């Protein structure tokens, strides 16, 4: 019988785990998840409300939140979207498919290897939360140590939910061979899920539970805010038949997705290797007679090698003389050229085809489809509403596309050519910064324009252009400059875009949490989230805050310049 640990599936699985172990991102995720477990344990609502932190209710509640709040679906997309694409990008595909590895073994090994790494990262949250039972904390209610609920709810709520998401992203990435489409789908996840949950609300409880992909409705009968702590601490979360049907259906959907991948996956330009006995066996005894190769002819590769033939006239055409210039004017010229190319490359990102319409739609959604109550005027409400909605999307957009721009040269291997050109580091760095900022500004202009059109279509006239100019100019534009500079600096210092994504998401989530619980100050809120209204936007304190924001941008660009790995002098 074949040793299961020596099958091609096991080899691919182990290799994927090994590759995962050598990446920084899983460790960063683990730290991020563990620190959130500590935060939710000690500084969540449990202490204040007297909920036991190891009660069934609280464990289930936290895993439900963990499933959704920390950007877990996006991390799942990042980890599961490109395992196969990466092989094709690195050119390893031909090496692998020339071996007797079946399609099924390869795909399953890839999927489960990466899913295993993902579950290990997720389990950092569960394990930390589990271990905290032994840590004393003032005012915290703790029940006798328990083990099973942690594993039960983690598996039931987190692992199965993310199995189906992982299969979906893996299928999308493998079939399209484009990781950016997966990222686009991941960006669509939250709005789609929220819309889906809103639709589910109208349906009976059983159907709601059965159709809920992340298991939010599994114990919706218990409302933590309106029940006593004593009741909640003794409450046992049990899953009904609908919940089991839901989980089984998720596993079946995952299997169907993987089966679709198996059917649709092909090796471009090569015959698909499905069974080892389909391979042609070469043996020396069957080899044809060798073509004679005499040493006389071989001698032609020495000094008397293929003599250089006279070139055709076209080849001997002299290259025209050029006069390279220097100085500040030339530097500016180079900067414009670099910004032009970077912006062109950004525009060619296919994920923008999904993201831009989605961001525009979500930014104007309220204004287009709901009742608009004018503040000072309709234009002010439209400008303020779009600015507030757009700002959050801009954070994600800038983090993602600045990362792409900063690492593109290395990834497409054009870096040695570009870096050997006589262009200052400032040209290479700022061009990426400006190109991303230009992309964000274009989006802002598009949103503003569409908001004005909606204003006219809904009869909310007159359109006051100055309101848009003031709100966008004072609030959004400096924020865009600040964000791009910050992300350029992060990429320059950390030198790994995935690490930057994790740091950015973690910092963003942490700051948002702080702002929402009332710790909101301009010194650590340069985007002025919830700190401005139209009435005070032109006041001196707000203008000073914008200057502070721009000053920080300058500091970040200086840091980026300092840490940029290309040297201009020894």
């Amino acid at each position, binding site marked *: 019988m074949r040793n299961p640990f020596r099958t091609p599936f096991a080899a691919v699985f182990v290799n994927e785990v090994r590759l995962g172990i050598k990446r920084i991102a899983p460790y960063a995720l683990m730290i991020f998840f563990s620190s959130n477990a500590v935060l939710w344990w000690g500084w969540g609502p449990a202490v204040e409300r007297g909920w036991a932190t190891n009660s069934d209710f609280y464990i289930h509640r936290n895993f439900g939140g963990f499933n959704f709040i920390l950007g877990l679906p996006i991390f799942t997309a990042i980890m599961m979207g490109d395992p196969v694409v990466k092989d094709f990008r690195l050119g390893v595909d031909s090496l692998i498919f020339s071996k007797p590895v079946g399609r099924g073994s390869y795909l399953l090994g890839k999927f489960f290897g990466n899913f295993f790494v993902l579950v290990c990262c997720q389990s950092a949250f569960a394990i930390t939360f589990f271990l905290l039972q032994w840590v004393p904390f003032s005012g915290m209610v703790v029940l006798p140590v328990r083990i099973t609920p942690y594993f039960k709810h983690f598996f039931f709520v987190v692992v199965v939910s993310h199995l189906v998401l992982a299969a979906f992203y893996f299928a999308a990435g493998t079939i399209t061979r484009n990781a950016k489409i997966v990222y686009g789908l991941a960006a669509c996840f939250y709005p789609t899920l929220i819309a889906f949950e809103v639709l589910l609300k109208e349906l009976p409880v059983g159907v709601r539970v059965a159709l809920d992909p992340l298991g939010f409705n599994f114990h919706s009968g218990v409302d933590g805010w309106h029940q006593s702590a004593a009741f909640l601490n003794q409450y046992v979360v049990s899953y009904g038949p609908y919940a089991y049907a839901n989980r089984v259906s998720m596993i079946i959907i995952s299997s169907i997705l993987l089966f679709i991948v198996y059917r649709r996956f092909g090796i471009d330009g090569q015959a698909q290797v499905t069974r080892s006995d389909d391979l042609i066996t070469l043996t020396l005894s069957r080899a044809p007679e060798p073509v004679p190769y005499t040493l006389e002819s071989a001698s032609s*590769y020495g000094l008397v090698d293929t003599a250089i033939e006279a070139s055709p006239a076209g*080849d001997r055409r002299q290259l025209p003389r*050029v006069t390279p210039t220097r100085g500040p004017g*030339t530097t500016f010229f180079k900067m414009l050229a670099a910004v032009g190319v970077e912006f062109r490359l950004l525009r060619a990102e296919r994920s923008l085809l999904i993201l831009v319409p989605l961001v525009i739609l979500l930014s104007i959604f309220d204004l287009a489809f709901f009742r608009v109550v004018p503040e000072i005027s309709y234009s002010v409400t439209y400008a303020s509403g779009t600015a507030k909605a757009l700002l959050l999307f801009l954070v994600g957009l800038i983090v993602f596309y600045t990362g792409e721009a900063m690492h593109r040269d290395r990834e497409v291997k*054009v870096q040695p050519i570009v870096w050997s050109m006589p262009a200052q580091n400032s040209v290479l760095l700022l061009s990426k910064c400006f190109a991303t900022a230009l992309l964000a500004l274009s989006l802002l202009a598009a949103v503003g324009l569409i908001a004005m059109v909606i204003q006219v279509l809904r009869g909310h006239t007159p359109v006051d252009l100055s309101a848009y100019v003031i709100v966008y100019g004072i609030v959004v534009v400096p924020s865009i400059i600040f964000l791009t500079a910050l992300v350029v600096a992060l990429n320059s210092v950390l030198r790994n875009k995935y690490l930057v994504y994790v740091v950015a998401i973690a910092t963003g989530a942490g700051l948002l949490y702080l702002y929402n619980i009332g710790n909101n100050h301009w010194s650590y809120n340069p985007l002025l989230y919830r700190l401005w209204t139209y009435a005070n936007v032109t006041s001196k304190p707000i203008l000073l805050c914008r200057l502070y924001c721009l000053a920080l941008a300058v500091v970040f660009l200086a840091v980026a310049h300092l840490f940029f790995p290309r040297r201009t*002098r*020894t």
Partner: protein
Amino acid sequence: MLIIKDLTKTYPGGVQALSGVSLNLSPGVFGLLGPNGSGKSTLMKIVATLLEPDSGTIEMNGADLVRRKDHTRRMLGYLPQDFGLYPTLTAWQMLDYLAKLKGITNKRERHALIEALLDRVNLASEPTQPLEEFSGGMRQRLGIAQALIGEPELIIVDEPTAGLDPQERVRFHNLISETGSDKTVVILSTHIVSDVSNLCSHMAIIQKGRIVASCTPREAVDQLKESVWEASVPREKLPAFKARFNVISSRMFDGEARLRVISKRQRPSEEFTPATPILEDYYLDLVNQAAM
């Protein structure tokens, strides 16, 4: 004149890539031969300002190339061994961008240069094709074209003929031999001996980060005059011959092994007849000796 003096480089992992490399390069095509992992690309990257040496100096016409990186980059044309291009740009757009980074601000001059370059590398007929659709050979040719932008005084081409078909290889040889002026230093790094014998007026062989020989190809071959011998021997006797003689190459033909052996002015045994030395004999002999 390019002068490389006592260049050393050790990578953070502890691998010593270069150990006291010194070379004097006059204008013309200089061949740097060496097996894979011998330190060729590290040396090329240092000269191309992409890597910092641990110690040593590089000077060209009195200018310190290690310290004055911007000055070096202005006079440099570099074709890396392993490079890529922006996939969504066309060949024209790519060259235009690089020419702008070189500081060629005059639009008419720049466009004339790009057209001439595309013509020289036989890519003029692909004006709108995005680079992601280029074959390996086409990308290599575009790489060569970009290295010639802006009349560089120092051209570094690292493994330039990898991926070129025989016709394109001859074309490349023509291009390089016609590019060199009395001011230009061309460094051709390769492990293909015939590239060096076809193109280079001077050459050096690098092995394990050290220069083990530096001479002209003619001098190299002359050193082996009356020292190369060949013989056909039965396959089963091959190990015995390898043990007795300095075998530099063996090829199987018609059931027999054809050996080339180096023996200084003395016939190794009766089976051997004298052979005309070629540059590959010199290279293999030196690399084998250095490996021992």
